[in-house]
Structure formats: C-alpha cells, structure tokens
C-alpha cells in the first residue's frame, strides 16, 4: 500500500498550547520531522502551516493530536505519497 511521506497542513490553533507543544506532540507520533510556520497571529488564535515528513505518516493520528490540542485542521495543501515499489527502490 502506498505510504504518505509528507503532508502540508493549514491549521488554526489557540495561542496555547504553544507551537512547540504542538510540533513535539506531532513528532512523537511516529518519529516524524515536523516544521511549523506561523503565518498569522490574531488576538486568540494563530494560523499555521505545518509540514510533517516521515516514512509512513499516520494521518488519522495527526488529526487526533490536532483536535485534542484544541486546534482545527482547515485543509491539506500538499501531499507526497510513495508507492510500494518506489519505497522498495529507495530502501
């Protein structure tokens, strides 16, 4: 089955938990590499662009973490997917 190796998310979150907390929680899910950019700051919220990279990303778990930390996933803007053969070649 094809594996998701990178996703770019548009997320709105309250100021707390911090960007660091959110990034750590996502990275801990599966030893992912997480890059967060703050695009906009409002009085109570901030808009983020989150890039998650890994060998096989569990998107449901990512959605759960985002929801549990009070954030909202607005859209999935980019996805990198690797097919089984391509993965085998890379390995």
């Amino acid at each position, binding site marked *: 089955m094809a594996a998701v190796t990178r996703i770019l998310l548009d997320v709105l979150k309250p100021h707390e938990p911090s960007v660091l*907390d959110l990034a750590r929680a996502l990275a801990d899910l599966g030893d992912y590499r997480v890059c967060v950019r703050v695009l906009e700051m409002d009085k*109570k*919220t901030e808009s983020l662009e989150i890039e998650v990279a890994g060998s096989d990303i569990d998107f449901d778990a990512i959605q759960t973490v985002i929801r549990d*930390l*009070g954030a909202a996933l607005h859209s999935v803007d980019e996805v990198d997917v690797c097919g089984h053969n391509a993965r085998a070649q890379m390995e």
Partner: protein
Amino acid sequence: MKLLRELGFLLRISHSRGIVRRYFVVNGFDGALTMLGVILGFVTTDRVPLSVVIGACLGAAIALGVSGVSSAYLSEKAERQRALSELEEAMARSLQSSAHAQAARWIPLLVALVNGSAPLLISLMIIAPLWLASAGIPLPLEALHAALLVALVIIFLLGVFLGRVAGNSLWRSGLQTLLVALVTVGLILLLSA
C-alpha cells in the same frame, strides 16, 4: 507522574499557575490571621479550658476550608467556562474534546482544593501546639503563646514565599506580612482592653 505532567500541562495552557499561587497565599494568609485573632481573643479574656479554644479554632478552620473550596470552585468554574466559550467563538468550533475543555473541568477543582486546603492546613499547624498541650506533651511556652508564635512564623513565611515569587528581598517581604499581623495584634489588644 503522568498525572502530574498532565496537570502541569493543563495549568500551563490555562495560564493558571499564578492563580493557584495567588489563591494559596491569599487564603492561607486569611487562615493564619483568623487563627491569630481567635487565639489572641482567648489570650486576652479569662482563662478558658484548652478544649474550648481548640473547638473554636477547629470550627473556624473547617469553615474557612469549606468556604475556600466552594467559593473558588464556583467562581473559577464560571470563569473557565466563559474563557472556553470565547475561545470556541474565536476558533469557530466546539472544543469539548480538547485539552482546553479538560482544563475548564479540572482546573477549577484544583484551584478549589488549593484555596480550601491552604487555610485549613495552616490553621491546623497553628492549632498543633494546643493539641500537643492538651495531650500532655510539655511545650517550652504556654500553649496559647506557642500557637501565636507559630501563627506569626507562618505569616512571616508566607511573606517570604511572596518575596520569592516576586524576586524581591525575602526578609523585606516576610517582615511586611509580619507587620500586617502585628497591626492586627495591636488592633485586637486595643479593642479588647
């Protein structure tokens, strides 16, 4: 350990550490000053049995504890609910399954426990010499005076704690709260003379 980490996280996201600290000092100070007043009242009147003093102090301590728990829980719960509703409005979605809703549920309980236990525990520490004396354990001072001394030391230590929080001189801060206690003692002595 996990529970403590979780609680620490909820305190952080709800910006409640300062509130818990404030409640501890404010109500702890209330408890210490109340005990100081009650015990001083007994010192300045005719001698009464130690059991009466203990009963009066214990009654006041329990009332302070219950009052602290109930008032803090009700007011904090209302404040947390309001903050959660405002955040939900800003996020344009329900946050009921998020850490913020958990904080709105648990932080009022924690704050209430701190607010209630601070005066209760401090009062019990102040009453301790009275219990020891009534149990026949010899004290270097008379029981009521020993309890007064414990009250003054605790009030001084609360000031020291405040000084540590503010990063000010510990002595200065401790002496400030001690001065408040001494003014209270002066007022009681003046009015009961």
